[in-house]
């Protein structure tokens, strides 16, 4: 192989519409294209659709790129787009379907070979962002095939920069470059991706020269790799925010006690002053420096500055133990109260360590830390969603150009019917914020929408609905002479790896 990549996680299928987890999208991006491209800051640019226009609020016309061919040589046409968009929400047994992406689409029709007309059931200014996430597959190759069939080259026919050779489950994914690619033909022809889930093993593989590139370099190894001859580390901030959630769910918070260790009568986290106080106890920079070896950026809101909706005025809280104590006293807890902190231990780098560090900091800030528990994600996630934890560390990644979906899911008032606040595990609720966000989401003007989002962000973080800690940085380790063009997407794509000379 011309290029060997050690990758931490493996896709569950090559069918690009089977699951939209980050892993699967990453793999799909190698073999398939979408109607639009998302740049490194997740902003939209033309892809297989060269241009698009609104006839009215619910009718869109898409002009498709000309002269694009599939891996098998057949031309790409409007029929493939229609087929792909229609299939997107009906892949059988999909664990993470693209349903939401096409939920606003009422109908898709091919006007001619290179024109598609889309009608939506509600006005959706973000339609291209939505359907733009769906990968386009070849109708001829895929019709009548199952997701499983995609695991072989005969069905996995796309228009992407690489052509699938073989997927050995749990082991390797091999491919070669698509010489007829409509965009830039990738530099490396033969590429092998090895799946090495263990961090240390992946690093060792790079050190021993078995692979040329690895992704997800664990933060603690960054310094070591940087200091090794022949190896470079490439880092970028990601859109993933790590935060501390303080549950406002019931009248009593789980595992929150008075100083004697008895359950506390009321839920202190319902008081914004308490939440703010806790935020003030945390030295975000210290966590980033000491635990992550610099692999993070202190956060005070949901998305980093590269994404739409980031409000530069909402700064991360700086440590101020005095003020924190004052706020606690004001809220009626001059001597603090007791709490247990929870976290996963296998979800993102350093998660077990961070929660311990938080424990230390809250203890210094005047709270009584009864314990710190780090659990496997499989166990943790269920309990966290069920509201079993009072104070817990969680993360949320961003795969959209703006903060809107995340604001909606994380901080919007929980409403099962309307499908809002799906990840509002702390059950924060503010009418003012809900209204501001709804207003922003209906704004068709790009600039005005972003301004409204920034204002909504400022509004909601006044109340410290969650305690943002930091945005994660991601690292790649590469052999000398290679460079990767990654961006916020956290993706390790062979087409984005180039030689420096």
């Amino acid at each position: 192989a011309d290029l060997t990549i050690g990758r931490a996680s493996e896709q569950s299928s090559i069918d690009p519409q089977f699951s939209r987890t980050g892993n699967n999208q990453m793999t799909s991006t190698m073999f398939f294209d979408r109607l639009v491209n998302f740049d490194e800051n997740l902003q939209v640019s033309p892809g297989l659709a060269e241009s698009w226009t609104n006839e009215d609020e619910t009718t869109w016309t898409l002009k498709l790129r000309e002269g694009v061919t599939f891996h098998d040589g057949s031309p790409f046409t409007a029929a493939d787009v229609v087929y792909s968009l229609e299939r997107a929400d009906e892949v059988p047994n999909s664990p993470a379907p693209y349903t939401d992406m096409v939920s606003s689409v009422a109908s898709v029709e091919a006007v001619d070979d290179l024109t598609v007309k889309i009608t939506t059931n509600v006005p959706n200014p973000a339609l291209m962002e939505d359907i733009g996430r769906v990968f386009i597959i070849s109708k001829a190759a895929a019709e009548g095939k199952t997701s499983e069939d995609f695991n072989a080259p005969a069905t996995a026919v796309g228009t992407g920069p690489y052509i699938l050779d073989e997927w050995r489950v749990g082991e390797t994914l091999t491919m070669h470059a698509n010489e007829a690619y409509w965009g830039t033909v990738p530099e490396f022809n033969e590429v092998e991706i090895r799946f090495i889930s263990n961090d240390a093993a992946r690093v060792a593989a790079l050190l021993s020269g078995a692979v040329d590139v690895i992704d997800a370099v664990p933060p603690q190894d960054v310094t070591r790799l940087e200091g090794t001859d022949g190896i470079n580390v490439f880092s970028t901030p990601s859109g993933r925010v790590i935060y501390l959630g303080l549950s406002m769910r019931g009248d009593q918070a789980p595992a929150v006690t008075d100083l004697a260790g008895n359950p506390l009568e009321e839920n202190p986290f319902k008081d914004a002053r308490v939440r703010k106080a806790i935020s003030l106890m945390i030295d975000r920079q210290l966590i980033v420096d000491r635990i992550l070896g610099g692999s993070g950026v202190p956060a005070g809101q949901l998305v980093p500055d590269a994404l739409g909706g980031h409000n530069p005025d909402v700064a991360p809280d700086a440590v101020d133990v005095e003020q924190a104590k004052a706020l606690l006293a004001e809220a009626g807890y001059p001597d603090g109260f007791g709490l247990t902190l929870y976290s996963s231990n296998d979800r993102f780098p350093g998660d077990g360590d961070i929660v311990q560090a938080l424990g230390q900091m809250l203890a210094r800030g005047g709270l009584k830390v009864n314990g710190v528990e780090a659990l496997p994600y499989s166990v943790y996630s269920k309990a966290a969603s069920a509201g079993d934890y009072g104070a817990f560390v969680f993360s949320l990644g961003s795969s959209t150009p703006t903060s809107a979906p995340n604001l909606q899911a994380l901080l919007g008032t929980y409403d099962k019917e309307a499908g809002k606040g799906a990840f509002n595990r702390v059950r924060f609720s503010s009418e003012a914020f809900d209204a501001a966000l709804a207003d922003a989401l209906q704004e068709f003007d790009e600039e005005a929408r972003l301004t409204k989002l920034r204002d909504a962000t400022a509004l909601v973080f006044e109340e410290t609905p969650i305690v943002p800690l930091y945005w994660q940085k991601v690292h790649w380790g590469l052999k000398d002479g290679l460079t990767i063009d990654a961006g916020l997407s956290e993706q390790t794509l062979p087409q984005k790896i180039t030689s420096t000379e």
Partner: protein
Amino acid sequence: MTVFILRRVLQAILVLLITSLVVFLGVYAIGDPLEILLPADASMAERAQVAESLNLNDPLPVQYWTFISSAVQGDFGRSFVYNRPALDVIFERLPATLELVTTSLILSLVIGIPLGLIAGVKPRSLTDESIMTGSILGFSLPNFWQGMMLIMIFAVWLGWLPSTGRGETGTFLGLRTSYATWDGFVHLILPATNLALAQIALVIRLTRTGVQETMPLDFVKYARARGIGEGRILFVHVLKTILIPIVTVLGIEFGSLIAFAVVTETIFAWPGVGKLIIDSIKMLDRPVVVAYILVITAMFIVINLVVDVLYSLLDPRIRGRAQ
């Protein structure tokens, strides 16, 4: 013999039934697959759709009944993650694990028995002491640590051996095996050694103890009294006698090897079923977990059966009883 096998089959069915129930309940208790399968920004509608398509909305007894009734027909359900028949997912990876496990079993016999014999013949000699001391190293340090050391030394520092993946494989008698190519073989060395270290230690200890306890027996003395050479006494009389406990223990250990392969496979990125199972447990991919455990338990039952048959081959006294 027929009776013997029939009896085991009846018992096996019962064991498998209980196992499936326990695992089913266990995985259910651990967590909610939806939490893990769905991407972070999934909506309620998507959630409901997935729950529906994976049959996760049914009450647990119904889910179990559905599982059992199709399992009887050989259908163990489809993996939540891969959307492929759970058995396919497992059998695709099982050969790699079996290759690894078998290789380390062979390694442990080939290295362990001779060392154990040498140590046992002259107990308390210098050779014995060094072999025994070395063997303690084998099982006192955690497996993952030993694995890392092997990688550090042989892959990173010395650069002699590859440390990740399975390498080139070839087919031999229709099986994909690492033995078919040199590259594959080299890839096998480190992981197999890692897995074998503890077993080697165990075999050494068993063999040594066996030799030490067999040598004073009357039949050894009698063999000497008949003028039989020491070599024959050791390799025929003593070895055949002590193979029984060794075979028993290795039969048990086969199971723990497969279990420990989880760690080795993770560290060496070996595409085996161990890595699959730990991922599946983490992803709460219940059909795969249940099918995996059932396959392993069934394998275990077969191994025990083989061990019992081996027993009777090794010890004629048992032959009458076992059959």
